[in-house]
């Protein structure tokens, strides 16, 4: 293998598994350490810079960082990264003073944002401090998009949402709420320097089964129903409720139903339980609220008696996989199952829809009705029009919308300066030794054995009787510090300097997780199985040195390195050093 080029910022970035997996590349270990030090405002701002909505995301994020977390590979559970973020938000002081200053004089450029969801708000957050005049159009009566209309208050209290939305609107954003944009052409005609479309995926998929028409009064599209609950148009549901679907929307629908009078709420899903789209923790929470999830049930028909819905029938299936792993659901040929219901919520998916974008705008769509958008620049076929969030590439989540908002803002800024959009700014990086003295590092290198701490919940009786009572209470500060200590500080990198090494093997012997091997070099496939413990996790890189005096190389498998620093403590010549690597995605401006 070629010696590893540690000058390439992506090499060490990849070692910080959580940050690498985060779409916005939030410097996770950095803020976790700040929380452990009780510096909540600083921790909050590290988050805010990257992901704009720490309080919201600390409660609702899809947390792609957690399955990636290295801790999950050395013991059962990853660090509770997401809920630690909430701790920073809950315990911070007033952070207004840390917010970027808005120039009193603008830069003369005007940008329209259509949609007030996280992607558009992120664009506003990045461009307003640069002097752009921002006009935000949204058909709702307040900002936040689906974070307001869809994510229920028992998961995301409105005051938390308002606070973080307002940090951005307070940057002098011109808001046009309760304004549905029915023509993109009209907006373009207003002469904006750029238009950002962040209108999300606002249409819920319907289901067409016998009895659907007759039952219409008691069959609701999940996301429409959730929005109507959020905006207080709906406050009741029948005692017996069926929720169709297995994603997070289904979970929010069933849990909301339990708070609006649903006593026997059941989720019925086509796929096996393990393959449901909902996150494991969302399923857990639903089960905890006495909502049975009946998997392998394919809906057949709505049963209506005397003009009123009484229930639905289902066909029981089981999953069969062909040799390519492709799944098909095959009927078990058991008699149809009848499930009683007063109301049915259909939560089987979301779709994009752009009836308001005219052909005259030059914004092109592909065969699936999705806009043609450049993956890197977010520019559409009309050079002035940019897309981000769910509107760009289909429904995802808040953190993805934020990450795309940052990128779109960079593009819009470059576009307004007539610069090349493909010349993206390089990330900001910094690598600093953590050595303080013998056996002394400026980070806490002790690896604790604690298992993941559980977030305490409010009283079930209380939260089930009021949809606005938040279920999770968040970590108290003592538990947060303990949970923070579980983090392995993966950003404190093991940096090897080959010309100092005397090949004494001390690092090999001391490394608790057998990461280091000195051996003859070869191609990667041949090298991986030959290491002290075979490096079978190919998603994790091997760090290979230049050739050493004995003609061997040092090979470190990054996979389960604890970042404990023992290699560096044991090395007589300081060939190993522990160096903190900071990686920040550069923003517009």
């Amino acid at each position, binding site marked *: 293998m070629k010696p590893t080029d540690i000058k390439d910022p992506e090499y060490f970035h990849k070692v910080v598994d959580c940050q690498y997996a985060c779409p916005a590349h939030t410097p996770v270990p950095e803020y976790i350490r700040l929380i452990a030090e009780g510096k909540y405002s600083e921790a909050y701002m590290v988050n805010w810079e990257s992901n704009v909505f720490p309080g919201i995301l600390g409660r609702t994020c899809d947390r792609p960082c957690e399955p990636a977390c290295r801790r999950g590979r050395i013991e059962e559970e990853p660090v509770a990264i997401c809920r630690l973020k909430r701790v920073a938000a809950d315990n911070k002081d007033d952070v207004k003073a840390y917010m970027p200053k808005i120039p009193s004089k603008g830069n003369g450029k005007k940008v329209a944002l259509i949609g007030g969801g996280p992607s558009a708000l992120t664009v506003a957050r990045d461009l307003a401090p640069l002097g752009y005049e921002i006009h935000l159009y949204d058909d709702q009566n307040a900002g936040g998009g689906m974070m307001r209309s869809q994510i229920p208050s028992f998961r995301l209290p409105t005051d938390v949402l308002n606070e973080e939305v307002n940090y951005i609107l307070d940057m002098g954003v011109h808001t046009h709420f309760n304004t549905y944009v029915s023509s993109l052409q009209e907006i373009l005609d207003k002469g904006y320097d750029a238009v950002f479309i962040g209108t999300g995926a606002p249409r819920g998929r319907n289901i067409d089964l016998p009895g659907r028409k007759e039952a219409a009064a008691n069959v609701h599209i999940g996301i429409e129903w959730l929005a109507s609950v959020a905006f207080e148009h709906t406050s009741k549901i029948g005692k017996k409720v069926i929720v169709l679907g297995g994603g997070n929307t289904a979970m929010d629908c069933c849990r909301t139903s339990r708070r609006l009078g649903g006593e026997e709420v059941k989720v019925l899903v086509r796929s096996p339980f393990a393959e449901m789209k909902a996150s494991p923790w969302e399923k857990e929470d639903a089960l905890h609220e006495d909502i049975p999830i009946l998997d392998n049930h394919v809906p057949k028909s709505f049963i209506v008696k005397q003009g009123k819905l009484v229930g639905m029938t289902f066909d029981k299936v089981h999953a069969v996989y062909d040799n390519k792993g492709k799944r098909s659901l095959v009927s078990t040929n058991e008699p149809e199952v009848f499930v009683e219901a007063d109301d049915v919520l259909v939560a089987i998916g979301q779709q994009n829809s752009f009836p308001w974008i005219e052909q005259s705008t030059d914004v092109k769509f592909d065969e699936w009705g999705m806009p043609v958008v450049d993956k890197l620049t977010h520019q559409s076929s009309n050079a002035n029009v940019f897309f981000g969030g769910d509107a760009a590439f289909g429904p995802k989540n808040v953190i993805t919308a934020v990450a795309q908002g940052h990128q779109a803002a960079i593009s819009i800024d470059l576009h307004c300066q007539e610069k090349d959009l493909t010349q993206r700014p390089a990330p900001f990086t910094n690598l600093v030794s953590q050595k303080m003295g013998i056996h002394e590092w400026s980070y806490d*290198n002790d690896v604790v054995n604690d298992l993941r701490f559980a977030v305490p919940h409010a009283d079930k009786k209380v939260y089930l009787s009021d949809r606005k009572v938040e279920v999770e209470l968040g970590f108290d500060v003592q538990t947060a510090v303990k949970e923070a200590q579980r983090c392995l500080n993966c950003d404190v990198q093991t940096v090897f300097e080959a010309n100092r090494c005397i090949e*004494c*093997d001390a690092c*090999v*012997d*001391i490394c*608790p997780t*057998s990461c280091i091997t000195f051996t003859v070099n070869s191609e990667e496939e041949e090298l991986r199985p030959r290491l002290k413990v075979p490096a079978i996790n190919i998603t994790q890189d091997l760090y290979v040195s230049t050739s050493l005096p004995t003609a061997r190389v040092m090979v470190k498998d990054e996979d389960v390195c*604890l970042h404990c620093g023992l290699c560096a403590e044991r090395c*007589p010549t300081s060939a190993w050093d522990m160096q903190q690597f900071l990686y920040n995605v550069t923003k517009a401006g």
Partner: protein
Amino acid sequence: MTYIRPQFRHPALPKNDLGYTSKEYEGALSTLCAGCGHDSISGSIIQACYELSIAPHRIAKLSGIGCSSKTPTYFLGNSHGFNSVHGRMPSVATGANMANRDLVYLGVSGDGDTASIGMGQFVHAIRRNLNMLYIVMNNGCYGLTKGQDSATADEGSKSKAGSVNPFQPIDLAGLALELGATFVAQSFSGDKEQLVPLIKEGLSHNGFAFINVISPCVTFNNNPGSTKSYDYVREHLEASPAPDFVPTKKEIKTRYASGTGTDIRMHDGTSIRLEKMAHDRNPYSRLEAMNALQNSRNKNEILTGLLFVQPVSDDLHQTIQSSDKPLNSLGKDVLCPGSSTLATINADLR
């Protein structure tokens, strides 16, 4: 801030026949200087015992005084241990071995502990063919007392302070051969590929097995001009056939064309394979081993590998026909047969 070894190990650590990972063979975290050759040897001992699948409680590790003699704390934390007086490890090992022949005895000593104060003890353990593996971690100096030249320091070797050693060195491997040791090997702490199989062989050997391991002292004897520094040793190594230990249960597969490898059968049915045995070397010949050792010394080379082995010999127990059971397993009536038996013995001696 800390100097604590984390409890976590690689989740895919392999297990041996007893179901143990190498973690069960580890000891406390070493307090020796970072980069000490002794720590590497500890690592090799852990690896060898793990690979041999010896239950840790079946091993007794014994040592004298010195940095080297401290190492038993840093390996085999689940085994029996005895840290004796300076140079007295052989007599403690002899006593322990006589009392309980069922344990595997591993003696660890230094060049000071063995070649100076303990010399009288060392030679008698060899002479008696005590069933043990005796490892000397040889750094040519008294590490623990700040690096004075030891009796194995080469003539002309320069100390850290710049003084040149005027005395002849004692060649411990040569001495062991001379005194009739039934297994003699030499190795280098920085060569685990050679050292681990040698330790496995030494532990499996019936009778006195001796391994002299050159083990640089990074703090007091790793300077230019020292003949026990990492650089010097690496430049002057003359590795004899790399051994490969083949346990009883596993079929011996020849990895080399016939005639290029030599298998040595040990008393317990295991065997050692010497790869590419040089034509002029016969591992069963004490005389040839002595010659080879002397020849490389003349060339300023350090001959490493298995120098000599006599697979079958009578160890001390067999020679003196002592109890074939550990004393702690014998009943009081056997251990102390009473005054009438004493009277019979006394009568015989009249």
